[in-house]
C-alpha cells in the first residue's frame, strides 16, 4: 500500500530524512518511533504530499507522491501534529467541510459524519463550536477529520498527544479497530504505544532508519544478553568471587548498596541460560541473606535507547 524508496529530504544543508526505505502492507499498522527531530513528521509530510522529497520515491496506494499528488491526497487521511481545526466551526460543520474538500458526494456526507462521530465518541459534541472544546476533544475531532472520508491510508502524527490516560486507551482501541480495512502509519515517541498498537515498528533516528521489525522480535532479539540483579549482605570481594565461579555468568559488577550495608550485583548471563537458581543456591550455601534476585528484561525502551545511542556513538567515531 505504501512504498518508500531511498527517500531523502533536505532543508538546505540540513538533511532531515536520509535515504529512508520501507513499505507498509495493506491493512497493517506501522509505528514510527524516534526521538523528537528524528524525521518522523518530515517523512509523513512527504507521504501526504505536503512537502516534496529532495530525492527518492514514495508511492501511496499505487500513486507517486510527486507526480500524482492529487490522486495520493484523494486516498489519505492525515492528522498533523497540531490538529488542523477551525475554531469558529461546529464539530459536524467542520467534518462536513472536510468531506467537501475530499470530494465526497453530498449523498454520503451525513452518514460519514455520523460514522466518524460515533467512532471517535463525539456524538454529544456534534453541535458544539470547536473553540469551546477541551484539548482532548479537539484531538479527537482531529482524528475524526483524518478518517471521516474513509480513506485507504490514514497517517497520524502523534495521535495520543494531549489526551488523558483513559482517552489514550480509547484512541489506541480505535486505531486497532481501523486496521484491516485501513492502512495506518502512526508516529510516536511513547514506546508502550508502539508495542500495544503496531504490527511493525520503524525506529528512526537523525533521519535514518535504525531498525524495522515487529515489536516482539525487537524485544527478543535484543534480549540476547539477560541481566540479573542480586542483592545480599556479604563481603564485596567474596561475593564477586562467588559469582564469577558460576558457569554462564559473564560480566559481573558488584557494588556496595546504599546505607543498608547490602551488596548488589548485576550479572549478565548468556542468552537462554537460566542461572538464577545457581546463584540462589550458592548464596544460601554461604549462609548469606538473600534480599533480592530478579531478571531484568530489556523493554522496548532499552532497545530504543541502545539503538539510538549506538548510532550516535558510531557517528561520532566516524567523525573523529
Amino acid at each position, binding site marked *: 500500500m505504501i512504498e518508500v524508496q531511498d527517500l531523502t529530504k533536505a*532543508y*538546505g544543508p540540513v538533511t532531515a530524512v536520509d535515504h529512508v526505505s520501507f513499505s507498509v502492507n495493506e491493512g497493517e499498522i506501522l509505528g514510527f518511533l524516534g526521538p523528537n527531530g528524528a524525521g518522523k513528521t518530515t517523512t509523513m*509530510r512527504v507521504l*501526504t*504530499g*505536503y*512537502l*516534496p522529497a529532495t530525492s527518492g520515491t514514495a508511492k501511496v496506494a499505487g500513486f507517486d507522491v510527486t507526480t500524482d499528488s*492529487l*490522486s495520493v*491526497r*484523494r486516498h*489519505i487521511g*492525515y492528522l*498533523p501534529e*497540531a*490538529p*488542523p*481545526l*477551525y*475554531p*469558529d*466551526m461546529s464539530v459536524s*460543520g467542520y467534518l462536513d*467541510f*472536510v468531506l*467537501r*474538500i*475530499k*470530494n465526497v458526494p453530498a449523498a454520503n456526507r451525513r452518514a460519514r459524519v455520523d460514522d466518524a462521530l460515533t467512532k471517535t465518541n463525539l456524538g454529544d459534541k456534534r453541535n458544539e463550536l470547536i473553540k469551546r472544546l477541551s484539548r482532548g476533544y479537539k484531538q479527537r475531532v482531529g482524528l475524526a*477529520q483524518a478518517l471521516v472520508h474513509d480513506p485507504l491510508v490514514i497517517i497520524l502524527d502523534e495521535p495520543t498527544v494531549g489526551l488523558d490516560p483513559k482517552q489514550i486507551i480509547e484512541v489506541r482501541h480505535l486505531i486497532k479497530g481501523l486496521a484491516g480495512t485501513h492502512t495506518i502509519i502512526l508516529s510516536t515517541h511513547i514506546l508502550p504505544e508502539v508495542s500495544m498498537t503496531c504490527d511493525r515498528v520503524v525506529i528512526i533516528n537523525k533521519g535514518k532508519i535504525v531498525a524495522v521489525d515487529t515489536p516482539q522480535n525487537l524485544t527478543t532479539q535484543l534480549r540476547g544478553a539477560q541481566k540479573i540483579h542480586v542483592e545480599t549482605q556479604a563481603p564485596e570481594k567474596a561475593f564477586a568471587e562467588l559469582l564469577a565461579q558460576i558457569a554462564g555468568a559473564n560480566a559481573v559488577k558488584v557494588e556496595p548498596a546504599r546505607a543498608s550495608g547490602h551488596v548488589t550485583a548485576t550479572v549478565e548471563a548468556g542468552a537462554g541460560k537460566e542461572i538464577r537458581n545457581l546463584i540462589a543456591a550458592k548464596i544460601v550455601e554461604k549462609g548469606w541473606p538473600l534480599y533480592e534476585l530478579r531478571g531484568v528484561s530489556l523493554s522496548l525502551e532499552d532497545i530504543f535507547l541502545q539503538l539510538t545511542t549506538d548510532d550516535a556513538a558510531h557517528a561520532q567515531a566516524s567523525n573523529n
Partner: protein
Amino acid sequence: MRSVYAIYRKEMGHYFVSPVAYVVVSLFFLVTAFMFSQYLRAVVEQSFEMGPDFDGPSQLLRAFLGLLALLSLFFMPMVTMGLFAEERKRGTMELLMTSPVRDVDIVLGKFFASLTLFVVMLLPTASYVVYVWLHSDPAPPLRVLLSGYLGVLLFGGCLLALGSFLSSLTESQIIAAVLTFAIFLFLWVISFGTRDTESVLGQVIQYISVIGHLDDFERGIIDTSGLVYYLSFIGFFIFLTVRSIDSLRWRRA
C-alpha cells in the same frame, strides 16, 4: 469547481459566523451614509450658487464613487489580512494542502468569498445613489451609475487580489494588512504630478496608477484599457498567490 465552492462556502461561513463581516459591513455603511449626506448638502449649496448650468447629480455621483474607492482602501486590508495568514498560523493550511484540492481552487474560493463580502458592503450604498437618481431632474444616465459601480467593484477586486497575495506571504495578519494598505496607497499616489505630462515615462506611470482608470468608469465610459488594466491586475495577483501557496511546500515549514 466543487472544491472552489467548498472553500468559498467555508470562507463565507467564517465571515458571517464570526463578527468580521458584521463589523466591516456596518462600519462601512455608517461612514458612507454620513459622508453621503455631507456631499449631498455641499452639492445642493453649490448648485444654488452656480445656477442652472451646474450638473449637481453627476458631481455628487462622481464624488461619492471616489469616496467608495477611498474607503475600500481602508476596509479591504481588514477583509484580506486573514485569508492565508490565519490558515498558516492555525495549521489548517496543512489540511487544505493535503486534501485533493488544487492550490488555484483554494485561492479562487477565497478571492470570490472576499469579493462577495465587498458586494455586500456596496449594496446598501446603492440605495443612496438610486435615491438621488430618482429625485434628480434631469436624471443622470443609468449607465453612469452602473459603470461607476463596476469600476468600484473592479478597483476593490484589485485590492482584494493584492491583499490575498500579501496575506499568503506571512503568518502575521498585521503585517499583511499594513503592507496591503501601503502598497496600494503607493500605486494610487504614484501618478500625482504626472497628470499633464507628455513624456513616455509620465504616461506609463499614469497607466500603472490604480486610480486613473477609475475616472472613466465614473464618467460612464467603460474603456477597454481600464478594463484590461483591472482584470490583468487581479489575474496577476491571483497567479502570484497561487505560486506563493505552492512555494510554501518548498520553504522550510
